[in-house]
């Protein structure tokens, strides 16, 4: 019995589905397969889209038949268990000042922690970039420790500022643009996660790691005034 399914998503894409849950081991298989497909250079593959639990492979059917693609992907899944996907570690400055964190007090109340303890725990761990989506350059990061898990806001906010850092369930998102949002906003980064002048626009990629570095409101305001000088530090490639 195979532990994955290959499903047609129209006549120009397949979805390789590893399960319907958010889990690091499962996401690692998604990202390893994405890397294996990229290294395989099979003619007719246009791009891949990794998500928490599946990899979509878009292809040009005039060049590559469905049967040939599926056959190749089945082999790659077996080989991909040994493939390491690229992963960079970023330190992303985040200001958790209450003036930029409209939901920090409520998150603290729900978790029974103080706001300072929420910040300490959120910035103590290394977050894994499961996938990007919703907005260009927007990462979904996990996993939060059990004691920080809170539901989404009952009423989504009409808009949150660009750079807002939101949490819900075991996930953290950083919003590259102003957007409506149902997550609990606990801080803001002055770093642009999205800039169309970059080759892919996005700062982080699926599979990267992120540590949030708490900064003061003064440091945030100084950085926000000079965005060009506000590079996040890449710790390791």
């Amino acid at each position, binding site marked *: 019995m195979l532990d994955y399914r290959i499903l*047609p998503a129209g006549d120009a894409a397949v979805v390789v*589905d590893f399960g319907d849950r958010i889990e690091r081991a499962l996401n690692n298989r998604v990202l390893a397969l994405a890397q294996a497909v990229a290294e395989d250079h099979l003619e007719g593959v246009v791009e891949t889209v990794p998500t928490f639990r599946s990899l979509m492979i878009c292809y040009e059917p005039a060049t590559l038949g469905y049967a040939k693609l599926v056959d190749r992907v089945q082999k790659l899944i077996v080989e991909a268990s040994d493939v390491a996907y690229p992963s960079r570690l970023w330190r992303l400055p985040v200001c958790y000042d209450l003036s930029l964190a409209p939901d920090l007090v409520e998150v603290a109340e729900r978790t029974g922690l103080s706001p300072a303890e929420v910040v300490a725990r959120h910035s103590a761990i290394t977050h894994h970039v499961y996938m990007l989506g919703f907005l260009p350059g927007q990462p979904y990061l996990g996993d939060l420790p059990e004691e920080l898990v809170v539901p989404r806001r009952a009423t989504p906010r009409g808009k949150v500022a660009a750079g807002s850092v939101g949490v819900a369930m075991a996930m953290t998102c950083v919003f590259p643009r102003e957007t409506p949002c149902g997550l609990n906003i606990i801080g803001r980064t002055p770093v642009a996660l999205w800039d169309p002048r970059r080759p892919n626009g996005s700062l982080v990629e699926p599979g990267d790691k992120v540590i949030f570095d708490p900064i003061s409101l003064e440091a945030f305001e100084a950085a926000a005034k000079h965005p060009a000088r506000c590079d996040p530090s890449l710790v390791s490639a």
Partner: protein
Amino acid sequence: MSASLHLLSPGPGATVQDLGRPGHQRFGIPVGGALDAFALRAANSLVGNAPDVGGLEILYRGPTFVVDAASARVAFVGARARIRVTRQGTTQEAPTGRSIRLLAGDVVQVGALAGSSLLYAAIEGGFDVDPVMGSASTYVRGGFGGWQGRLLQPGDRLPLARERVDARDEAMIDDLDLAPPTCLRAIDGPQVDHFADDGIATFYGGEYQVGQGADRMGVRLSGAPLRHVHGHDIISDGIRPGSIQIPGDGQPIVLRCEHQTTGGYPKIATVISADLPALGRLGVGDKIRFKRVTLVEAEAARRAYASIIETLPTRLKPVLRSDADIAERLCAANLISGVIHARYDAN
């Protein structure tokens, strides 16, 4: 001063679009591009452009613009619309589906669209906009691409790549079917197993109506509601143009070219790629059915569509210059009324 189209009024929802920017969906960037890539291709071929040159995508009501270039060639393809060209105080009507050579100072007024809500204007040489990730397409929600990453606004001067175009026989194409579809072909989607057989039968047997808020991301349909057998939330999964999601209320959402890259509703079916240009033509209030086809049938339809695209340039017919060049017709009109402008001699 560089050449431009000076938009006195762009119409609602007008943007620059080409064939999109594939290859960046893993970063959350939709492919986007023209809602009806076929109509854009046809318009581009009429003005002698490559198929992937960016044109003006017009929704619901046409623009009014002034030509701020020595000359320019434009072709409108898509919905029916009354197009009026005013030169030196004289106004003539111009048809869609053919190329028109315009001169400096010409005022082009495109009226309300009829027959569909989508019209393209291709301009010879295209617009002089900076490509983002290889594409001139505007992605308004992301704030980049096209002209300043936004809908066109009154007063915009949309730069043209060419300062002037040569006089030549104009081209026309008259047998395009660009009406909104009444039926779209679809194959079963990745989460078809979230629906019982009777739900699937309801979907393929029913007629749906396009609701308010149809846009470049997608269209909401209303009709017989579809019940899920495994709940209506799934962990986020990749999306395609043509993916048909069924959210909690059981009413389908059909994603179009500017869909978000991932989504969390079960997808009952996917519109086949050959029918995506037709999907782009669906407007508010249109009625639509879905026909279930196999992957093999979808692939055959795509090959047929590819050959239609390939042979588009061979379907162009010349329009004799003496008969139809609007510049000369207007010039003749001016001669009759005794108004001659020196500029015509230079062109």
